[in-house]
């Protein structure tokens, strides 16, 4: 007899695994398409659809290089950890009223925890290879992560208030009448800033920046680099999926089934994040810290205070 618990675990693992790979793939395709549009290169969509697989194939055939005296264990663990954190974040996203891989009571806190722990994965990826650019990239992320996670905390608490719950499915149900993006207009933009920070994307790509020849992944090659890139795309997807759930009403919507709505809303947010990478240049470290502490954090306070008043 097949145990029901085993089947649901299998379904959960398959769902998260698929969203992880699919998310990273969608990010890569969007990056090709939007990059071509901004760069004015045009080109057929089929190229954008196959290029990510082909690039992945190169990395799979490439040697995984070692550096001089790396911490090999932590170096191998880093991309795996980052992937696992993206996966953990995806588990709490409800795809429909009845299907959530892990509808834990404090789902939104679990996502917040994944954001905080990402700092360790990114730092280890930069520190372990024993190289200057990697180390600087890792430290840059650590220096900025406090700003990201503080901001995230306030924004996420604000969406929990109207739902009177930290559970993701309850947060969606509370948006039945009015989505949080309208109820808390500051929330979604602030949340997207955090999501791009955690995936060190676009203007907040300081950890893997080109002024550090790739920063925390400057020394990575072959399969290591592939896992790192996939994990980064997956983390961006996780951020977008949580954003779609917390602010855009998750599965709510007419005509189409719930999971389709979640996928559509997530894709829209992903497109916004990917486009920001092509339109907004990387910010200076000093500027990021100043903007976060003097502009965005007060806005997050305001967001929370307004949410509290309304609730």
């Amino acid at each position, binding site marked *: 007899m097949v145990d029901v618990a085993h089947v649901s675990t299998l379904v959960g693992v398959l769902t998260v695994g698929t969203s992880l790979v699919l998310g990273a793939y969608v990010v890569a395709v969007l990056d090709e398409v939007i990059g071509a549009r901004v*760069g*004015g*290169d045009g080109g057929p969509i089929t190229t954008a659809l196959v290029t990510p697989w082909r690039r992945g194939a190169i990395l799979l055939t490439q040697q995984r290089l070692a550096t001089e005296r790396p911490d090999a264990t932590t170096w191998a663990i880093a991309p795996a950890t980052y992937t696992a954190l993206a996966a953990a974040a995806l588990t709490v996203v409800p795809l429909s009223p009845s299907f959530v891989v892990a509808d834990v009571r404090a789902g939104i806190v679990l996502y917040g925890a994944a954001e905080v722990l990402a700092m360790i994965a990114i730092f280890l990826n930069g520190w372990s290879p024993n190289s200057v650019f990697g180390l600087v990239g890792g430290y840059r992320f650590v220096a900025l992560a406090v700003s990201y996670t503080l901001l995230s905390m306030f924004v996420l608490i604000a969406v929990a208030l109207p739902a009177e719950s930290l559970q993701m499915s309850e947060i969606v149900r509370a948006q039945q009448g009015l989505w949080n993006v309208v109820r808390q207009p500051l929330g979604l933009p602030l949340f997207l800033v955090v999501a791009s920070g955690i995936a060190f994307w676009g203007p907040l790509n300081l950890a893997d*920046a*080109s002024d550090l020849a790739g920063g925390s992944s400057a020394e*990575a090659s072959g399969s290591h680099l592939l896992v790192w890139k996939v994990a980064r795309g997956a983390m961006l997807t996780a951020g977008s999926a949580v954003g779609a759930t917390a602010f855009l009403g998750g599965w709510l919507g007419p005509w189409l089934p719930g999971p389709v709505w979640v996928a559509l809303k997530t894709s829209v947010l992903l497109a916004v994040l990917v486009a920001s990478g092509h339109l907004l240049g990387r910010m*200076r470290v000093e500027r990021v810290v100043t903007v976060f502490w003097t502009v965005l954090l007060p806005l997050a306070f305001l967001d929370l205070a307004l949410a509290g008043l309304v609730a």
Partner: protein
Amino acid sequence: MLAASGARAPVPVFTAAGGGAGDALQDLCLRREIRLVDSPRHATVLLVAGRLPRSLVRPLAQVHDQLPHPRATVWWQAGSPSEPPQLVPGMTTVAAGQDAAVEAVVTAHRELLRGVRASEQHVLADEPPARWRGVGPHGQGGEGMMGGRPYGRPMPMTGPDRDGLELDQVRCTVGPFFGPFPPGLALDVVLQGDVVQEATAHPNPFAEPDPSPHPAGDAPAHDVFRRALTDAVPVRDLELARADHHLRAVARVADLHGLRAVARRVVRTAGQLQPGQVAAVRSLRQRLERWRWPRWALAGVGVLDRQVASRTVAGPTARAAGVAVDARSDDPVYADLGFEPVTHQEGDALARVRQLLAETEQALELAARAAGRHRAPGSGVEGPRGALTPTSAGSDTALRLLPDLLAGREWGDSVTTVVSLDLDLDGAVSPAVAAG
């Protein structure tokens, strides 16, 4: 199947720019067949281009050995009169134009992945930079607890930082093939975290005596500015070349800040410039300003005050700091065209980018107004990086400026500063730098 699929992907290429090859390599960003990467460890093909003095061959070998297997090297003459370096057996050499270079890169990549071509072996022995095993009381390569040189490298010692704390210092050399830097520039850097404590520029490698049959002084035939020193040249050609150069410099700044696609658009615009075609450049400028990244990334970075700028830099870099010097001001042809130098006052990287864009628009307007008029040789020529004379030193003084300009700055700001100064070591050869 993996190999077959990977063989059809855009080739990840790490470029190593020698003298006279910067622009040719920049143009490659427009080719879909290849993808330029930031680190040699992300590439399958190392594309070496241009003139490589002997002192650059060993650093090049160090870059080569960092590519993962399977790997191949292609050397491309890239329009610069030069000979291929003795780097690695089996290296492909290309003397023809861009298409031939791209084809050689793609072929090398495909052959590697299909197993037709053998991956290149290490050029250098895999050994520490200095002997250290068994040296010193603990075999750590030196004296005392912190004085050793484990793995042949000095231990990171502590030093006071800008806030008065004692922090570890990391010493490293960046360049001469660091992507964002101009060809040939290498800096010895002492870093504390993300902050540059000290930066010392290596001597200009292009200033060393060159035994090759194509010495450094040879002006490539396409360098209209050098030709203008001796021949009558159409003003239109000079100004179009200036606009092209300036837009390329802007593209390099955009590329450094992660705006690869924007940089591609700028490089493409540069290649298609026509006299009077100001609208395209103006819309580009408005687009850049609208997205505010120049302000976020460049304002207040690498500030040169007017006094320092007037002594050390020339051309648009000096004019961005309020030094209204331009050889065109004394040129009768330009006086007839109503030329007035454009300036900015701030002297930072933002002002330099705005200066380049403003001068691009101005150059296109001048080119349109000049029609068929020629500029007579004799007086100084205003090159894209300042006045040219037969013995002009160009960026050499700017090179000596770097230690002061970079000390105490964050690494990201330091790279932005170097890139925004638009240095040209190859065209700036003078005996002073070779000696110092």
